[in-house]
């Protein structure tokens, strides 16, 4: 698991055209699934999406592992519950320079009580010089969704008293 973001650049065995297409199709299917019901696959899929253009056998093994995980947890439900606090909680964080191109990764999720109706996991668009900058970029990535979610929930008749963003980096605070 810990080598998810590692890419074999020294001696990669590239997939042939047929296997490459199959890899691409399955990643696209997982992409659909991870946005709807299987948020627990989202980070693996976010990485696999960066590999569809030039997949190798290592990427294929990672896809196979994700498929196996999906198979043995196929009955896991996703339950969403909202409490009456009117508080939308967000947990956002980033990891610095984990991608092969030294880009950082953004991760975040929201909750209205229990379960997670929205979450994001994506490679950042630009390179950062430090983990501090990467953390700031995380906020930049997620803030539009925080504002949009508040407006959307209010338009649906749900009273949003406030948004709370949980961070773990003290210096950012």
């Amino acid at each position, binding site marked *: *698991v*810990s080598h*998810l*973001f590692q890419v074999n650049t020294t001696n990669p065995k590239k997939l042939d055209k047929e296997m490459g297409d199959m890899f691409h199709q399955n990643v696209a299917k997982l992409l659909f699934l991870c946005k709807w019901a299987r*948020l*627990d696959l*989202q*980070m693996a899929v976010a990485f696999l999406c960066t590999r569809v253009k030039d997949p190798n056998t290592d990427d294929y093994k990672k896809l196979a592992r994700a498929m196996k995980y999906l198979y*043995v*947890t*196929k*009955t*896991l*439900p*996703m*339950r*969403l*519950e909202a409490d009456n606090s009117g508080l939308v909680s967000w*947990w*956002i*964080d*980033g*990891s610095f320079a*984990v991608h092969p191109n030294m880009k950082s*990764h*953004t*991760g*975040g*999720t929201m*909750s209205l009580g*229990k*379960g*997670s109706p929205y*979450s*994001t*996991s994506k490679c950042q668009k630009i390179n950062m010089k430090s983990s501090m900058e990467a953390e700031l970029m995380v906020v930049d990535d997620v803030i539009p969704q*925080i504002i949009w979610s508040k407006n959307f929930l209010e338009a649906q008749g749900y009273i949003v008293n*406030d*948004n*709370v*963003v*949980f*961070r*773990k980096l*003290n210096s*950012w*605070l």
Partner: protein
Amino acid sequence: MWVEYYPTGEMTGDFFMKPLQGAAFLKFQDQILNVNKDDLKQQQMLNVADE
């Protein structure tokens, strides 16, 4: 909107930004999907039956 400090071990956002395994993975998986023990038992029974 306000910002609050949250300790590393409890940070649900970690699930979406770094590969976790073992207890940490299961803990956050439970939080995000809001699954309970019965769901997990049912899944384990099905897996045993498949084998």
